[in-house]
């Protein structure tokens, strides 16, 4: 597959944007400036980026508790994201959702989801809806290896294949459901083989190789758009941080330091950077410039969030019902 230089640069930028955003979140979290929970995607950026790089703005995604990467790759604005993480009224959800519930219907983000496996049936419904409405929109459903053991995974794959729906199930297999390793939570190595049970196409791809992800996802998206049905793509990857910020020593209660170091060598951003430089597509300097520009964007987002107001207390009672503000 021939990928244009502009596309490659855009893919690189998106991955770096996710990384820098989250590194800043990690830092702010450690300083106690962000309340609640933060589940970081650091190390898995190639998946959201590779998949979303071939989506249109009107395509849909459903995301997970580890969702910052998905929504950034789908086009979310860092300012409103950061404000949401800070719990401010200017955030995507007026500060009422936080890190795990970022949504923007205008660009097809049907919401990150705090329930493992919760997004799968919702993605199927969005795909049913575009089929009913006669559009060629596709839906991408992100979820993890842990969620692949939930009943909703099986119910959703069955429904999607039965009705040949335009949905792409993207399993981010980072080898752990919180602390429980894949070999302790399921008897198979390749989750993609479960596609066979539902007469669906299944692929396994190196989830730390953004170009490989992009190619596999593009084929699945093309098939879905053409009405040829769903695909299950399993991306093998690893989270370089703990389950959440605050998981001691990057999750080394249940992972060895050697394993974490090994995976750091497979960092998807460095891999793409090396390739772009060695194939003389861009210079190291150009990548450095790009990174600095994105650092500025992240800092602007932090400034925006810091300067934004908290929601007024009346906001507690609003948005419970459409067209009615619930009174105390």
């Amino acid at each position, binding site marked *: 597959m021939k990928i244009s230089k502009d596309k490659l640069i855009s893919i690189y930028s998106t991955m770096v944007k996710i990384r820098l955003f989250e590194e800043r979140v990690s830092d702010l979290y450690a300083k106690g400036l962000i309340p609640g929970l933060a589940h970081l995607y650091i190390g898995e950026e190639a998946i959201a980026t590779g998949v979303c790089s071939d989506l249109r703005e009107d395509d*849909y995604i*459903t995301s997970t508790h580890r969702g910052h990467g998905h929504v950034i790759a789908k086009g979310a604005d860092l300012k409103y994201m950061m404000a949401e993480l800070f719990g401010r009224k200017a*955030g*995507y*959800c*007026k*500060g*009422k*959702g936080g890190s795990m*519930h970022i*949504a*923007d*219907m205008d660009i097809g983000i*049907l*919401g990150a*989801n*705090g*329930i493992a496996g*919760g997004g*799968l*049936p*919702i*993605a*199927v*419904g*969005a*795909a*049913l*809806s*575009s089929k*009913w*409405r006669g559009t060629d929109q596709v*839906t991408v459903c992100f979820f993890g290896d842990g969620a692949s053991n939930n*009943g*909703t995974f099986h*119910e*959703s794959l*069955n*429904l999607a294949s*039965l009705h040949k729906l335009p949905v792409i199930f993207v399993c981010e297999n980072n080898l752990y459901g919180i602390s429980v390793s894949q070999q302790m939570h399921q008897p198979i190595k390749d989750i993609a083989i479960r596609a066979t049970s539902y007469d669906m196409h299944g692929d396994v791809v190196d989830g730390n190789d953004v170009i490989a992800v992009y190619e596999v996802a593009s084929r699945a998206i093309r098939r879905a758009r053409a009405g040829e049905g769903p695909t299950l793509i399993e991306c093998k990857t690893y989270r370089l941080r703990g389950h959440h910020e605050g998981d001691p020593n990057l999750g080394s209660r249940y992972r060895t330091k050697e394993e974490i170091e090994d995976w750091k060598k497979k960092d998807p951003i460095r891999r793409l950077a090396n390739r772009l430089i060695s194939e003389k597509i861009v210079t190291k300097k150009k990548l450095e410039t790009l990174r600095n520009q994105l650092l500025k964007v992240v800092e602007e987002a932090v400034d925006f969030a810091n300067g934004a107001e908290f929601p007024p207390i009346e906001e507690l009672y*609003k*948005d*419970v*019902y*459409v*067209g*009615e503000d*619930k009174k105390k």
Partner: protein
Amino acid sequence: MREITYAQAINEALRECMREDERIILLGEDIGKYGGIFQVTAGLLDEFGPKRVIDTPISEAGFVGASVGAALTGMRPVVEIMFIDFTTVCMDMIINQMAKMHYMFGGRGTVPMVLRVNIGAGRGAAAQHSQSFHNFFMHIPGLYVVVPSTPYDAKGLMIEAINNDNPVIFVEHKKLYAEKGPVPEESYSIPFGQAEIKREGKDLTIVATSAMTLRSLKAAQEIAGQGIEAEVIDLRTLTPLDKETVLNSVKKTGRLIVADESHKTCGVAAEISAFVAEEAIYYLNSPIVRVCSPDTPVPFSPPLEKAFIPDEQDILTAIRRVMEYS
């Protein structure tokens, strides 16, 4: 006016709405050729075809969740859950997804869908097909909960539910499906949050839901022969709750019985009793009495099941009790 059954009234509401709005689709188990286990969707597959009347696999979490996704993206699904008992296998989709999205996303996105369920024992179906836990849904902000007692209310409230932009739990009653009553042929809707005084009376107030309304009316008629006039209020919707109609009646009569088929502990009647105690306790001349299902699973054996179901005899006992106080 012509009379049709409660099941036919709901069927008619679905049909009329589907003719007017092609975004309305039906999903559920055996709702197509079979017409639904209680025949509520009978004939709709023939008129609207399999694209709009969809028989689903036995995957409640799958198809309720899919309806949430469809509703978020422009459709208006009406979903049948064969028995309210089966909502337990898709509670995440109902409670964590359907009910919360509008709030959790700060007002971005709406989930206009109706989840049809049915309650009520009395068919010898035992503990997993006879429950009445509609009270669960009253506890969850973000859901509207509708409990019609007559064919007229069932049609009007269903049309309102379908046209509402919020998720609605529409609670039908198995023992009411065959009950007949006058229903206009034309389309009409009944606003949520308006209880109806089904019988006026000055001596005591019975606040009732669903089939308990009919049982309360029978009891009220019987006790009228002894010169006691009971006022019977049918709540019609649990959320929103028409507190005003209840409070006005209690202030007038000074006595309150709450008749609802969920279990007594933490049931609908507990909530009604609590808010009346909070807001009108000094108007009461007697203790509040609840007539509910006992705190046991629904038994199979006919005499046990009969003893389980709160009926007009239980309501008459309650009436005599509140009338002991002057």
